[in-house]
């Protein structure tokens, strides 16, 4: 091995209480790729600029996604990490693992790459950071031999992700891990072979607390909710919150209810459920006394995204309530209608949220066969420039 790279600037970042990424890199510095990576990163810290080139088309046979090509722009100075491709590996739903599997992944990655990973990437994948083109096929074969597959990249279905839902949360209004896994399996072709105008992300949250940020970070957010009444255990309320418990029910719960649907007379909590918007605040705070109702399902929201290119968008309600666990086929149908329309008329690098704004939500609904509903908007239009369609009128 060539000489160990000296990294005085990066070494500063091995100090302090927070776990250090530099320490992680140094743990595998014996790998020549990582040794050069440390040298290259130290150079970036000195020069205040990155030294990675843009993209590069590499992948495994038959897939268009899952591998991000990465080359440095200093091949003479840091030859060992000149090829340093990223592999996205589809994580198990809910990010659960066992030690046996983790060790197998480590053994494969020790043999085939840098030994550096991200647990996990922003979309949810297990990310293997840094390998060479010649290792890609053998690596893919090793991964599939232990039942792992690649995730999405480019203009395809990106790897879906979900909160841990029913596995360890009393608020899960549907089985997020099951639905996430089933959707992932159903759309394997769309996940591995990019054919869309741009990326499409699914995220599944069991309640409106939205632990996987679905409303901001996915094109299709499935957020758990319920139809019937919040369940109140008045006895538990008295026991845990009335005398002590650190909560002032009037101030911290009733007055913070966004739909003003609660009342509290000092002994009894009442909820006007028809006004409740299922925000979760009261349940979060009074968790020993309140629970979501029994008639549970999910809302489907569409169009969340980061700024590039037309500005950031939060997803909006497309379907306010659906019994998701028993309606997956209906969801597939709607999603495929949307993809057909977007695939035909969407512009290159136009996310579905931007596409819908460009063609108009009314037109969009008509094209995908959904009825307009007031839940989809915050208020009806205020401008009078209505495109009337007289053809259908007698």
């Amino acid at each position: 091995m060539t000489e160990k790279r000296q990294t005085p600037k990066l070494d500063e970042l091995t100090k302090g209480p927070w776990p250090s990424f530099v320490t992680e890199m140094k743990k595998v510095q014996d790998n020549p790729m990582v040794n050069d990576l440390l040298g290259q990163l130290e150079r970036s810290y000195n020069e205040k600029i990155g030294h990675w080139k843009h993209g590069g088309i590499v992948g495994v046979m038959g897939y268009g996604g899952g591998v991000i090509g990465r080359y440095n722009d200093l091949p003479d100075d840091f030859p060992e990490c000149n090829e340093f491709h990223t592999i996205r590996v589809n994580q198990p739903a809910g990010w659960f693992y066992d030690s046996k599997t983790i060790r197998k992944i480590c053994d494969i990655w020790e043999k085939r790459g840098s030994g550096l990973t991200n647990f996990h990437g922003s979309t949810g994948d297990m990310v293997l950071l840094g390998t060479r083109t010649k290792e890609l096929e053998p690596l893919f074969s090793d991964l599939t031999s232990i039942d792992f597959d690649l995730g999405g990249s480019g203009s395809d279905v990106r790897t879906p992700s979900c909160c841990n839902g029913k596995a360890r949360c009393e608020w899960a209004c549907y089985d997020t891990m099951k639905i996430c896994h089933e959707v992932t399996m159903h759309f394997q072709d769309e996940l591995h072979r990019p054919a869309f105008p741009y990326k499409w992300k699914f995220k599944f949250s069991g309640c409106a607390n939205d632990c996987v940020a679905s409303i901001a970070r996915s094109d299709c957010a499935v957020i758990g909710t319920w139809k019937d009444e919040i369940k109140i255990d008045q006895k538990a309320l008295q026991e845990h919150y009335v005398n002590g418990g650190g909560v002032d029910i009037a101030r911290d719960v009733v007055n913070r209810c966004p739909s003003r649907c609660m009342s509290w007379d000092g002994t009894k909590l009442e909820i006007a459920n028809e006004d409740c918007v299922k925000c979760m605040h009261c349940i979060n705070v009074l968790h020993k006394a309140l629970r979501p109702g029994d008639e549970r399902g999910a809302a489907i929201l569409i169009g969340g995204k980061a700024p590039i290119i037309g500005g950031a968008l939060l997803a909006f309600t497309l379907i306010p309530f659906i019994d998701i666990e028993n309606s997956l086929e209906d969801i597939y149908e709607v999603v495929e209608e949307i993809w057909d329309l977007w695939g035909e008329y969407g512009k290159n690098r136009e996310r579905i949220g931007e596409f819908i704004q460009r063609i108009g939500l009314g037109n969009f609904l008509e094209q995908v066969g959904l009825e307009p509903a007031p839940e989809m908007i915050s208020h009806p239009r205020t401008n009078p420039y209505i495109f009337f369609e007289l053809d259908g009128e007698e």
Partner: protein
Amino acid sequence: MAERRTDIGPPHYENFLPPVIKKNYGKWLDHDIPRPGVLVHTAESGDKVWSVRAATPRLASIVTLRMFADLADKYSDGYMRWTSRNNIEFLLTDESKVDPLIADLKKEGYPVGGTGASITNIVHTQGWVHCHSSASDASGVVKSIMDELFPYFESMDKLPARLRIAFACCLNMCGAVHCSDISVLAVHRHAPKIDHDAMSKVCEIPSTISSCPTGAIRSATVDGKPSVEVIEEQCMYCANCFSVCPAMSLNDPETDGISIWVGGKLSNARSKPMFSKLAIPYLPNNPPRWPEVVNAVKHLVEVYAKHARKFERMGEWIERIGWPKFFDLTGLEFTKYHIDDFTHAGETYNRSAHNKIFNS
């Protein structure tokens, strides 16, 4: 040779669920947070599971992953999971193992915390470690901020509510930082430098031109070769052209730096989800410790912690007091950069006479 397998998808999650989770799946009743970094969930069956949550730097070596596997074998029947914010959790059925596990994690350098009204791990991007378009490193800034805010990770009594920080190293926002209490966003501030020699070899000129949301890119012939030119005053440094054309790099060590945004939230609890809004347009890149950025974030946390009411997230607090008061309390300068001038800019003007008049 074995048959080549494709389209198999991820392994089924049930393979990785601890027995206590399988048994009580969908039958959880309640949870408590007995101490920072430890959740205890109680099932209808009466079973309890203690989740011990430890920070990781997200960038993990196989040495560390194997160590986590060993800890899982020692304490949690070989099972572990990661959270949506890159923390690792061990799920224990024996309460007496909680303390020894925490001690082992601390010894290895992975502190326990990030529950309740705390500052947990920062969701972030790749930065100079692995990205071509980054305007800053990511991991280094995150490490520097969390070292400083560490007391907020290990406690639950210093803040009115949880405070979420996210970091993205360019406007692509792989870290989706647009809805966090504090968003740290690296920015380019210079139009792309065009590599005219490479242009016709590596880029499709028409798609490069059409990628620009402000129409700032025109075709041009440079030294007899087909290329493009950029109307610099129309460029807003979004780097969409760079995403489609490698010959349009925006990376610039002199002008790249970091902006800070506040008051976003994702959760629907109480108020609707909100975008983060601009607080500080630009701070310099100052590796390895980014002191200007760290101090600014710390200051924002401290002003919020001092003034917000219980359960108020940063954005809810600012909505109550108003933006003029926010700039007054934080002492941050309000500039023309804070005023939106993109697509929906007009919706952000205060079209009312509602103003709190106060002496600063």
